[in-house]
């Protein structure tokens, strides 16, 4: 079996195992609401993880995503606030997403033009975006706008009604479950990311750079330009995740999500993407995000389990997946050398 599908299979297996465990232990776990919440509550981690996956496949890393998300939320809240600027939310979001992309492109420029380590550049990007967020506003700013209270809510898909009316599943589905806009955005980004990597030249270049940058360059891949685009895409995803956060919280706060970049990286690794680049994909990352979310949900359901077990368990999962990948890698190099 292709090694790419092997790790993906293990990821899917862990996901099913966790879900099966939850369903077996907690009576209400096997419900549509839990699944919908799983997508909704983890949408921003997921969207930034899509960008992170593309960056990591190209052999880089982006530590700035959490700060960019926080900075975006406070920017939107500040701009929408009628007493301060009074922009329309869509206007603010468009500006925020554009700024996120430009910010990412700047990071990509420093990485490619000066040949700097992405870790250092995105690290300073992380400090920078966090500081800018605080400069914009260092309080928790609520967003009160009809767009948020009506349009966003109105855009959620009434899943229970659809399942009942069109599929006749009235006995199985509870009333009032709907797929919020946050979850829709998450799914949209996952689909778009998957297609982008699988079917476009951009995607093929990303894999080429991640596998071997030098030979990609020799084959005529515009490596420097690609890197700028890749980090711009990650900045774009992070800013989009920030927009989704405002749907979710109806507020902006510049001190939020410290450490979320690590969740995004962990989800990517658990999803079978190699941190050394060249191997991986967005579907795996989706499963990685859902696994992290499931761990959190399980702990919430249990009620008595402390939150730190989540960190330890995620660490153990990381160890499991990294070891599997390492063993596979070793097997391949050994086969190649004999």
């Amino acid at each position, binding site marked *: 079996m292709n090694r790419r599908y092997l790790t993906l299979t293990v990821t899917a297996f862990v996901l099913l195992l966790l879900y099966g465990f939850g369903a077996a232990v907690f009576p209400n776990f096997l419900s549509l609401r839990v699944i919908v919440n799983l997508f909704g509550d983890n949408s921003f981690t997921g969207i930034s993880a899509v960008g992170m996956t593309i960056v990591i496949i190209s052999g880089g*890393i982006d530590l700035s995503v959490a700060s960019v998300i926080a900075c975006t939320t406070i920017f939107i809240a500040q701009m929408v606030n009628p007493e301060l600027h009074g922009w329309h939310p869509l206007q603010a979001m468009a500006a925020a997403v554009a700024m996120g992309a430009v910010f990412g492109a700047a990071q990509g420029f420093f990485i490619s033009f*000066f040949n700097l380590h992405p870790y250092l550049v995105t690290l300073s990007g992380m400090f*920078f975006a966090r500081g800018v967020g605080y400069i914009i506003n260092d309080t928790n700013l609520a967003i009160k706008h009809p767009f948020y209270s009506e349009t966003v809510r109105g855009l959620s898909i009434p899943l229970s009604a659809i399942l009942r009316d069109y599929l006749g599943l009235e006995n199985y589905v509870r009333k009032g479950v709907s797929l919020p806009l946050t979850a829709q955005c998450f799914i949209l980004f996952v689909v778009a990311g998957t297609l982008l990597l699988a079917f476009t030249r951009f995607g093929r270049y990303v894999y080429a750079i991640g596998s071997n940058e030098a030979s990609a360059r020799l084959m005529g891949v515009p490596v420097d330009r690609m890197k700028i685009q890749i980090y711009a895409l990650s900045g774009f995803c992070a800013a989009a995740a920030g927009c989704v956060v405002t749907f979710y919280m109806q507020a902006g706060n510049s001190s939020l999500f410290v450490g979320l970049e690590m969740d995004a990286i962990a989800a990517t690794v658990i999803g079978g993407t190699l941190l050394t680049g060249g191997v991986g994909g967005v579907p795996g990352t989706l499963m990685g995000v859902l696994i992290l979310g499931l761990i959190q949900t399980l702990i919430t359901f249990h009620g008595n389990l*402390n939150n730190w077990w989540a960190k*330890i368990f995620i660490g153990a999962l990381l*160890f499991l997946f990294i070891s599997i990948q390492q063993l596979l890698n070793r097997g391949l190099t050994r086969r190649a050398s004999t």
Partner: protein
Amino acid sequence: MTMLRYAGILIFWILLAALLYWVRKQKNVVFWPLLALAGLLAFNLASTEQFYRLDWREGHLYGVPVDIINHASKVGILAIGMTLVIAVEGIDLSVGAVMAIAGAMMATLTRQHDVAPAYCVLAALGLGLAAGVWNGFLVAVMGIPPMVGTLILMVAGRGVAQLITDGQIIIFNNPVLTYIGNGFLVIPFPFILMLALFALTWLFTRKTAVGFMIEAVGDNEVASSRAGISARSIKFLAYVFCGLCAAIAGLVQTSNIRSADANNIGLYLELDAIMSVVIGGTSMMGGRFYLASSVIGAILIQALTTTMYAKSVSPVVAPVFKALVILLVCVLQSERVKRRLAARHQTA
């Protein structure tokens, strides 16, 4: 008294200038971070009142410079360990989490189990060593890329620390343990600890063949293996040593605030430590390493932070400047800029 202070400042600057001249003549890498530090100090001489004021109270030295070296100590200690890890082409992302583990262990033992201070410290250091062994095993034995391998402990470590403290912030007031982070022997004890660690590490690496081997492994692992150096054990030892340094730094910070806060001790300090090493001129590609330069880098970062506070820059805005400084230093050290500078040198 004022005369004395002016004389002191004058002597300090003469010494600093002499040091700068000497390291420049030696073509020592430490020149660049030292020059940046001198620039920052000169800026403060010109613009910040009371920056150089030193007071003598109850046998302690007080003042802004003392504050800087005091607070720079924990990052300096981390940077010493990190230098060796980066020299073998590695990186250790877990030092912040290891700091939290060590602090949690010390506080829990003294507060909840009434263990003697010496054993608390030993247990904490032992955990640091164990963390280093774990990282070393993953990177050196299993061959996992360092940024990936140490990520595991970075994520799980804080969970372990919280497990040890049971999620509580544990306050303690044992006089011996609080001395580690707050004591003074004329100058702050953490700084003395850092100097001692630096001296020992310097002797161990520069007066034995170990330093040479580290540089060989970092420069070319295959070649050094062929030459008979056990690259694997050298790398392993570097991570173990880094874990120990992280534990010491954790003890300093925990002791300084007299409580173990598993969520916040050492938070993002791995970044400061890596930054210190890179500012100090050790390349992330491994090879040559510069211990003293890393320590100066740590002091430079702290001096920058303190200067910003002295200029009443809000602590929440300070990261922006910090980010710009890291980026600037990285750009200045990049190959492209170096080549450009070298080219200009030749034509001139």
